[in-house]
């Protein structure tokens, strides 16, 4: 039986879809069978990031409504055969989601895949609650920035009260990814550091992703940054994917880049 992981955030635009795509691929690179599901009904984005937008024929709402078979709707990634993708519906809105149908869909996916990763819609409205309802674990994505952190706390609060696992008296495992860290700013005290963010949100860390211009370049091409060589964000995603697969990977401290050394180094060329 596979594990269902919801990738969530309080606020939009923090890199949730990018994280879902990269972690999906990263877990597949570890030899596990993964399916990433776009739960952002009405807003379809994950297909673009994965470069699969031209191959979408059927979406998950059609599967849930029994219009098509799940096998017909699943799209296999060209770059890694262990990764599959299930698209969001663009024509319907979030109100079409129904708890029983979602549970049935996820139960079916869990039979065929080791990891079922759900890209939640931004915010904490109806669609979000449905995404977390049957999740075994949640990954919360934040930026080191006040509004994203504050909204993440509310999303965590809802996770703690509405997930089926919690209602059953079990614990829903939750971890934080801090995305778009600029080491130099953290060092200067101009950006919140990870210890402070973890303390404020009272949550465990899954990994830190440095700011990397390559991420936009990668999504332009529909090739997640994890596929690039020597990409700092890509390397960070690889480490996180290995942690999710149960490997013990040291938490690399991307916030402690030696700024003084960099300045001295630059000084040579002045």
């Amino acid at each position, binding site marked *: 039986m596979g594990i269902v992981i919801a990738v969530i955030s309080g606020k939009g635009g923090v890199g949730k879809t990018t994280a879902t795509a990269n972690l999906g691929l990263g877990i597949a690179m570890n030899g596990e069978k993964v399916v990433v599901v776009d739960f952002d009904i009405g807003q379809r984005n994950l297909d673009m990031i994965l470069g699969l937008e031209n191959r979408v024929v059927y979406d998950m709402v059609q599967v849930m409504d029994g219009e098509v078979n799940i096998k017909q709707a699943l799209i296999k990634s060209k770059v890694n055969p262990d990764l599959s993708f299930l698209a969001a519906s663009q024509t319907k809105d979030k109100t079409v989601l129904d708890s029983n149908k979602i549970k049935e869909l996820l139960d079916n996916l869990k039979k065929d895949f080791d990891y079922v990763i759900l890209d939640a819609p931004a915010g904490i409205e109806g669609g979000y609650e449905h995404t977390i309802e049957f999740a075994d674990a949640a990954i919360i994505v934040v930026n080191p920035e*006040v509004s994203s*952190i*504050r909204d993440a*706390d*509310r999303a965590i*609060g*809802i996770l703690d*009260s*509405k997930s089926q696992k919690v209602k059953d008296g079990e614990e829903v495992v939750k971890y934080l990814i801090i995305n778009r860290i600029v080491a130099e700013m*953290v060092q*200067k*005290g*101009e*950006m*919140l*550091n990870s210890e*402070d963010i973890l303390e*404020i*949100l009272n949550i465990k860390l899954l990994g830190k992703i440095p700011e990397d211009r390559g991420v936009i370049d990668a999504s332009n091409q529909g090739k997640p940054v994890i596929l690039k060589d020597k990409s700092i964000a890509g390397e960070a995603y690889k480490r996180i994917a290995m942690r999710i697969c149960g490997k013990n990977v040291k938490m690399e401290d991307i916030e402690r880049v030696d700024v003084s050394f960099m300045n001295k180094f630059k000084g040579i060329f002045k």
Partner: protein
Amino acid sequence: MFPWSKKKKSASIAKDRLTIAIMSDRRNETYPFMDDMKAEIIEVVRKYIAVKDIEITKEREGDIEALSIDVQLEV
């Protein structure tokens, strides 16, 4: 570094502000069942008297937590 030349860094201002904002958010958070409860209370009260609306707020003062229910009657 002289103490008077020390300016507070923006990251620590952010931490202070967030800590306070989140504490207050957590306090004010309503229960997930609030809407259902409200609908049921309205139904019960309506059996006896015409109700326009009901407002439920969660309040906390010190260690005491209370739900205050305001029933607005039809005039």
